[in-house]
């Protein structure tokens, strides 16, 4: 019997109640929100429950919404996959923009180790309990978190590219 989304929803509702919300089907992926405090237990439950069996972490990444209210400015997105039933789900956990913190899941999925480091590198999201939370792609000396919307794409210190020729100034003269 195929795993129905309603089944997932009921199970989660039964155990976590208010902490899991906003269930909806986005194209082919069933998606819901989880409060940041319960993320570890929800994922552990999804992984170990004999019916749900979401045993594979496909992806983990962050998104920045600077225009949201303060405690919903960052979101960590988890994609889980159940290979037995071939079912994908997406979990979102919103966290505060002032002090972005969330518990690590690197003790549940080994693969999340570097993905969390990457998210930290890009957004400065602190994964509490991560064994080695330091920058992975950028240099250790870097102080900005480049994927946050307020940081520009280009390096401001570069000298060889004239912004006027790239249509990047408001008044081209």
């Amino acid at each position: 019997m195929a795993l129905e989304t309603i089944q997932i929803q009921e199970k989660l509702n039964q155990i976590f109640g208010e902490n899991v919300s906003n269930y909806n089907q986005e194209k082919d992926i069933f998606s819901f929100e989880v409060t940041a405090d319960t993320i570890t237990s929800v994922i552990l439950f999804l992984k170990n429950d004999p019916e749900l069996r979401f045993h594979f972490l496909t992806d983990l990444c962050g998104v920045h919404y600077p225009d949201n209210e303060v405690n919903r400015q960052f979101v960590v997105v988890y994609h889980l996959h159940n290979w037995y039933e071939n079912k994908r789900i997406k979990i979102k956990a919103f966290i505060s923009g002032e002090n972005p913190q969330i518990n690590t899941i690197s003790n549940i999925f080994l693969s999340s180790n570097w993905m969390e480091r990457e998210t930290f590198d890009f957004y400065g999201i602190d994964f509490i309990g991560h064994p080695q939370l330091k920058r992975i792609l950028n240099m250790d000396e870097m102080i900005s978190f480049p994927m946050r919307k307020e940081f520009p794409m280009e390096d401001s210190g570069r000298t060889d590219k004239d912004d006027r020729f790239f249509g990047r100034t408001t008044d081209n003269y």
Partner: protein
Amino acid sequence: MSELLLPPEHRYAKRIKEQQNEDGSELSILNLGPTHPATHGIFQNILLMDGERILEAEPTIGYIHRAFEKIAENRPFYQVTPLTDRMNYCSSPINNMGWWMTLEKLLDIEVPKRAQYLRVIVMELARIADHIICNSILGVDTGAYTGFLYVFQFREKIYEIYEEICGARLTTNMGRIGGFERDWSPEAFKKLDIFLAEFPAAWQEFENLFVRNRIFIDRTVNVGAISAEKAMAYGFTGPNLRGSGVDYDVRVAQPYSSYEDFDFIVPVGKSGDTYDRFCVRNAEVWESLSIIRQALDKMPEGNDFHADVPDYYLPPKEDVYTSMESLIYHFKIVMGEVPVPVAEIYHPVEGGNGELGFYLVTDGSRTAYRLHFRRPCFIYYQAYPEMIKGALLSDAIVILSSLNVIAGELDA
């Protein structure tokens, strides 16, 4: 000696001090990379070694971090394909097509059957090209240069087919929303036929050179073995996972671009060692060839090469000059005035190295709000330190080679 290489507070320095071998030898540190020739890319590993045996490895990556995801947030959708090209540059068409399919899923566009089959053909060609590189370089790393020289000629043949299709060799930037930018020329099909006729014999010979080769077997069997459980925990996908015996393949699990129409098997290994990974890739090349033949046989009549979606597909240039409607569409597409829904999409394809996923968040504007690439290399490379623990230094090179870690994909 070791104080020169590492600061004394480093964890290796402490271990070297503590460990006393009976014969008076001491542990040493070896810096492998970032420009080591045998790593085919730039990764650094600081190895703690006891003689020739690796005790521990500390990987550093990010040496060609190019900020793809940041660029993608600042460019219109159709300017993201050149970025995907440069991710896994050994098999760019798969990345291109994966990106277009993500957009098609977002915009609910149905691609005509013929265009889907053409996509399948080019994706399978890309897979062959990818596996040619991986397997022949694995040969070079075990000391067999001949295989590399021999099969690389056929990579050139694949490049020539790409050139007929899109004009570029390596970074193809192929396809558009809804299909291809132009129909395939008869020359492309002719070159494809020649390739299909000539390549199998060469690949068979390549296989014969390695599969029962004593030296090759000695160098690869039981080297870098990883169990299926461990591989799944580390997020392995693609040929590396199948080498461990798990038959997960996105083409079968979530068929895209009409893969369900074709009859192919998913080759799996058993022990997950370097030899199995090599054999899985070898077998996949045969499957890819069979898929290409099936696609050519089943190719629907006609000359549909793109979906009829004037909102997103650029009209032919002649029409832009002569018809009002085309001019308006052209203008709208180029200026980015196309309707894009606010949505979140995840689309996976089976890339050369595993599940290549595109997680796209849109806000209705002409650029992506957030685009995250699920890069298979990045995820499975974290298992490398564990895989080489206890192995010889020369094995570490072979294991890295058999994992086929592409630096561009690793660092994005």
